[in-house]
């Protein structure tokens, strides 16, 4: 499918940047005239993916997090969040609802929410090398409307 537009952002894996990343993604995608509900969903999935990179990828040693947002025809968007941190040993286990390796401030619901709010999610990870989360979603246009 033909790519119409893209942006890439690289920032330090510090928690203060979680808000920056989700607001930036939402601002870039405003050109698709998304509904308030779609904006809330986009901000939430970005926040979950970026928080995972910061908390689980890097922990207390912040490294670079990159976020790429692409726009395709018919309102299809793809958000790619990548870190070069610890990686995930067991991806299916990490994606199990309520599973977390974090402390009591994590609910283990990040992947469930990313799955619930996007149409497609793919996770690639290599222990010691980092993790890439790719999410696709239809926003605004005919496609999203016809899909209800």
């Amino acid at each position, binding site marked *: 499918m033909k790519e119409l537009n893209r942006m890439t952002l690289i920032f330090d894996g510090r928690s203060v940047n979680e808000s920056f990343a989700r607001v930036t993604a939402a601002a870039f995608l405003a050109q698709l005239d998304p509904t308030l509900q779609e904006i*809330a969903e986009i901000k*939430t999935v970005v926040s979950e993916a970026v928080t995972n990179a910061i908390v689980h990828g890097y922990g207390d040693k912040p490294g670079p997090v990159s976020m790429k947002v692409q726009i395709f025809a018919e309102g299809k968007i793809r958000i790619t969040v990548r870190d070069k941190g610890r990686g995930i040993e067991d991806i299916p286990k990490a994606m199990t609802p309520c599973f977390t390796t974090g402390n*009591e*401030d*994590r*609910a283990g619901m990040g992947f469930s929410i990313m799955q619930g709010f996007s149409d497609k999610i793919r996770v690639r990870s290599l222990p010691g090398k980092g993790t890439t989360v790719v999410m696709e979603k239809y926003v605004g246009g005919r496609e999203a409307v016809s899909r209800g």
Partner: protein
Amino acid sequence: MISYDVQERILTVSLFGEIDHHTSAGIRSEIDGLVRKYSPLCLILDFAGVDFCDSSGIAVVLGRYRLMQSLGGEVELIRLPRNIRHIFDMADLRRLVKIE
């Protein structure tokens, strides 16, 4: 940011702004400080002023539920914006706390 009101051992905490991993530590410790100070029988969390909430908000509720349970009290959530209600339903929080 939070504000609160205590009446007859019912502590109502109103949450404002954004709840994410970055802000939730401060929110948790502020609420826990109030719970320890007032020993309420019921903790009501009012979400009407919350603009954004991700899974960190689920952890805020779960942790407060555990704290209130250890003190013999309960937690109730009120005035949830639609999107936050959706996220909390994914985590099945209704099993543990009352949601208005």
